[in-house]
């Protein structure tokens, strides 16, 4: 009896040791994030006004704002989402549901995983050669958006595959056993049931894209820009203009980088304020991702 109690005490001891390690690790992460955010808030809160959001950058720090930066970031995200989502989701579905498992698809699989780990500057170089010089798209919103799309494409593909893989095979068999084709099965079951995971992956990918600096600097984003891309809606027929796609752009992280690299203290404050807004943007996007995941998880249980 005493022996067993001793053994249990010993086992519990290690249980507690791990509990403490795990808790510490979690708190370190949370603590650092909190310190970072509070530090930014202290530095930048004085500049957090509506005027900051609606002003163009300026050489006078107190007049400078992030209008062109956030409009640029959202234009980029729009292009990125529109190109990366259909490509990535379709590729993910193809690889999971249609492609036969052989050495060739194995190589594709390994390469997609590798692509997710390629440094973002390398994507910038690729895009510089491909979009800017080969397709002659210039340092435009389109180029920047496509570059970021390349960057998050592996993430979208992997998120799609992972969430498709989570669907039990019995669901597929149930559908096929009723005479459904592959496409009917995908359309009515595979896609809707994996949508939560896919959307989560997409949003996390996009929230990474919004903070990327290196690749869009490489393709030639401007660091100082005092005008907006042309409006997508015009007063003349056909009322929709695609000219904004070919306009030069800047983005939030580039604007921050520009300000940080200046010697004046006031510009550093601007950079901190822009940082707060960028962080809030990503927090909101991740929040939406978590909400979607929760909503879908609640609806579907296996």
């Amino acid at each position: 009896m005493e022996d067993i109690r001793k053994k249990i005490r010993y086992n519990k001891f290690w249980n507690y040791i791990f509990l403490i390690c795990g808790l510490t690790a979690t708190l370190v992460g949370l603590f650092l994030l909190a310190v970072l955010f509070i530090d930014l808030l202290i530095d930048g809160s004085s500049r957090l006004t509506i005027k900051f959001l609606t002003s163009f950058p300026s050489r006078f720090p107190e007049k400078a704002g992030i209008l062109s930066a956030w409009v640029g970031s959202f234009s980029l995200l729009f292009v990125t989402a529109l190109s990366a989502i259909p490509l990535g989701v379709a590729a993910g579905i193809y690889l999971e549901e249609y492609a036969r498992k052989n050495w060739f698809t194995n190589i594709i699989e390994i390469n997609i995983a590798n692509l997710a780990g390629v440094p973002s500057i390398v994507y910038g170089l690729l895009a510089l050669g491909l979009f800017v010089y080969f397709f002659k798209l210039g340092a435009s919103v389109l180029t920047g958006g496509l570059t970021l799309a390349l960057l998050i494409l592996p993430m979208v593909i992997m998120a799609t595959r992972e969430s498709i893989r989570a669907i039990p095979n019995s669901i597929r068999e149930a559908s096929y056993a009723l005479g459904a084709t592959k496409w009917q099965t995908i359309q009515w079951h595979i896609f809707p049931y994996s949508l939560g995971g896919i959307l989560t992956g997409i949003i996390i990918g996009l929230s990474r894209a919004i903070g990327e600096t290196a690749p869009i600097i490489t393709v030639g984003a401007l660091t100082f820009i005092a005008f907006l891309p042309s409006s997508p809606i015009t007063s003349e027929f056909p009322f929709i203009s695609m000219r904004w796609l070919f306009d030069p752009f800047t983005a939030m992280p580039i604007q921050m980088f520009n300000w940080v690299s200046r010697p004046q203290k006031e510009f550093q404050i601007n950079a901190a304020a822009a940082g707060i807004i960028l962080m809030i943007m990503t927090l909101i996007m991740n929040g939406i991702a978590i909400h979607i995941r929760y909503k879908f998880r609640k609806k579907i249980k296996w």
Partner: protein
Amino acid sequence: MVKGNIKAEVRNLNFFYGISQTLKDINLSILEKKVTALIGPSGCGKTTFLRCFNRMHDLYPHNRYEGEIILLPENVNIISNTIDPIEVRMRISMVFQKPNPFPKTIFENVAYGMRVRGVKKKNVLYETVEKSLKSAALWDEVKDRIDKPAFDLSGGQQQRLCIARALATSPEILLFDEPTSALDPIATSKIEELIVELKNEVTIIIVTHNMQQAARVSEYTAFMYLGEIIEYDKTEKIFTTPAEKLTEDYITGRFG
């Protein structure tokens, strides 16, 4: 020994997974509107055999059929390469081991087979769903909540829902792959009653681990061992005076 209208005739059926042969030279007649049970120890190939009937093996690579399963009265070989597996599955439905409803409403689960066939009219869908749920003895329990998620049902109800789903497309043969192995005794007896009831409408083939179940629900029983049919006869005969020593050993519990 086997008398009645033949619905399907299995001739020299061999089945290969890669290089390993899992079904060996199977010959068997399935009678129309009767229940045929497949029994045998684990790994004897009874599920593999069952899944040949609706070409489920075509979903996975490295599977190969040899021989014929002739579906009557058209006299078509449903495992021939020239027949589309989808066509076969439209005519021969299946109920699986574990209840596998779709994470949709009860109505959508039953209506799915009709939707696959392109039926869009609300009233046709509704009538079929009601009729199928009645045939599956589930209507009274769910009629007030057919727009509720199927996962809200109990395990036994879910399995009856899967039966309704399979019935909705009026299959010619209904395959059951150990339909009660995941259910409690009360749910099991409900499913068994249902199977006995259903044979008036449809030809049934059922794989079961449970020999009492085979004895209770089926008219004909095939005993399989190591991928072969050892004995196939009237259920009564198999369980009272089996011709083969192996069958007798199995049903008396000496192995398996």
